């Protein structure tokens, strides 16, 4: 996947670059409105990460430019503003999704993948990893062609883990992914733990490998290299 990161904060841009590069994506950076417009005119990208506040212009204007030029890339808006107006306007102008700072990198990645699936893989709803297959339309998961009896949250969790395989997923990031983050409640890690536990139980019941590992002190990890049972 080829991604253009339009972000004026060098530190965030470099985090995004490092994270996405490890996934094997080609990641280009643009720090300003003009630079971004030039790159968009010259090259094509699968996905664009767009910061709304740029030093020399508004990201929403850039979004209008992208849609006016009929650029087919998926657009994920990154904003520090939690302003609802921006969100609504952004999605109306034609962004595919919206994420607010401070975001979790795996969360951003999951959303990027979702956009990519919808846009570039022409809406393919199947995600497979070894013996595990997920259908994002029907929310059905199979292991070795056996249908797993899992809840919607467990499905979302498994999808999140597989998209971010071999990554350490903090409990905060999992909690935010499952339940959103606009309540006062801090992530209740007991619930995360129980969901993980149930998921592992259900996968191994279907003779799947135990991919999900606990990372001491931090969270969990979908270990792609786990030995098949």
């Amino acid at each position: 996947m080829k991604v253009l990161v339009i972000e004026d904060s060098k530190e965030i841009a470099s985090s995004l670059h490092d994270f996405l590069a490890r996934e094997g994506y080609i990641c280009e950076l643009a720090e300003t409105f003009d630079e971004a417009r030039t790159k968009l005119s010259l090259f094509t990208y699968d996905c664009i990460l767009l910061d709304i506040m740029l030093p020399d212009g508004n990201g929403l204007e850039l979004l209008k430019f992208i849609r006016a030029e009929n650029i087919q890339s998926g657009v994920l808006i990154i904003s520090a503003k939690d302003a609802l107006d921006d969100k609504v306007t952004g999605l109306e102008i034609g962004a595919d999704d919206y994420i607010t700072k401070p975001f979790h990198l795996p969360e951003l990645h999951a959303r990027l993948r979702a956009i990519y699936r919808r846009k570039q893989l022409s809406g393919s709803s199947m995600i497979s990893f070894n013996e595990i297959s997920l259908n994002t339309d029907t929310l059905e998961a199979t292991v070795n062609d056996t249908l797993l009896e899992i809840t919607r949250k467990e499905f979302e969790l498994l999808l999140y883990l597989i998209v971010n395989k071999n990554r350490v997923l903090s409990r905060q990031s999992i909690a935010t992914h499952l339940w959103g983050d606009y309540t006062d409640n801090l992530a209740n890690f007991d619930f995360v733990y129980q969901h993980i536990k149930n998921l592992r139980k259900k996968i191994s019941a279907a003779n799947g490998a135990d991919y999900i590992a606990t990372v001491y002190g931090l969270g969990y990890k979908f270990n792609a290299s786990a030995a098949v049972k």
Partner: protein
Amino acid sequence: MKLVDKFTLWFIGIIVLTTPVTAYICYHNLVKNIDKTEISQLSALNETTASRMEKGLPIGEAPKGSSLSVTPLQTALPEDRVQIEKTNSDDKGFISLLTVNSYYTIKGQPYRISSNNYIPGSKQIMNAIMDTIIWKLLIIIVCVSITARLVSARILQSLKLTIKQIQRFNVKKKVQFPVTRTHEFRELNEFLQRTTDKAVDEYVAIKEFSENASHELQTPLAILRNKLELLSETNIEEDQATLLGDMQNAIERLSKIHRSLTLIAKLENNEYAVSESIKFCRIAKDVLAAYEDRIEMKHLSVHTDFGSNVQLKIHPMLADMLMNNLLGNAVRHNVDNGNIDIRLTAQRLIVSNTGLPPEMPTDELFQRFKKSNQCSDSVGLGLSIVKQICDVSGFCVSYSYKNRIHTLQVDFQPAPKAVVTPVPLDNLAAAAQPAIV
């Protein structure tokens, strides 16, 4: 009382007060003038009679209504050649008899020539004046009342416009006050124009500041969080992982606090004003569905009683947040195998749940950063947000703890000035009681 009524009453009051004084002056002047005219006429009659007698002519007839008499005197003429007598000619004082005695020496013989006439008595004059005053007062009151209304509508037009403008004023938008030629209104409008413009400017400045602050804080938070995430994927030891985990927790907390405070500030700025109603019952059901997994994990039993078609005037995002905070609390502060009871009607929403007794008076829990159990998985802003959302939407929220049940009640149409406070004594009594489940 309306301004025009006040003016009218004062005006009428002044007229009523001054009328007796003017009536007295009027009476006095009338009596004086009637007497003066009559005296001069009668004196002239006496004079004419005297000169006729001098010339040896007959005395002649007195004019109609008056009488004339000539009396020869035995004594010398009195010093005062003209004497005036005024007597009441009836008991009631309606008619007075005015007599003018003139003394003359005609052909060596002293005479007294008396003429008299009936004039209106004090009572009659008084009655006439009273009649006039009553009519005058009536006419003035009617005229003043009518014209005051007609004229005030014109004069107070500008004031009315100003009041309308100020009622509709919202800090988000500047308003233009009407131009008027009335000095006081012009001063008022100029003052209001300055004040409202300033309020709008300051609102914009604060909004910009909080937005900038939000941006400036979110970016370093995002950097910290992302760098920690990258760091946690490098080869690290277990003790380093613990440190990283703690840091991630701290960032999580910081981010929540910041987001909640920004939200409260926005609510205080009234940024979520709405004019349309939404189906609150639908949102309530959706939010409850989102908590399904956590309710199940804690083995809570939920009883719901959702009224159908509950329409409320509230921003959809706030409705969502309100339900999320209430339900989140009900789940989080619950005990395993506990209960949650949710009742929603067009009048109120009641969320009650089992839980440990609060460690402070329940109404204090609406204050920012007040936490009952000081449990570490909360930042203590949830109920402040609930309160703020209720304030913004014109709802009234109250919290009570009784018989081991926490109850949060949101009244959608609170009675004006109704003070809904749980009685603290009840709490203490309930806490001291043995548990009844």
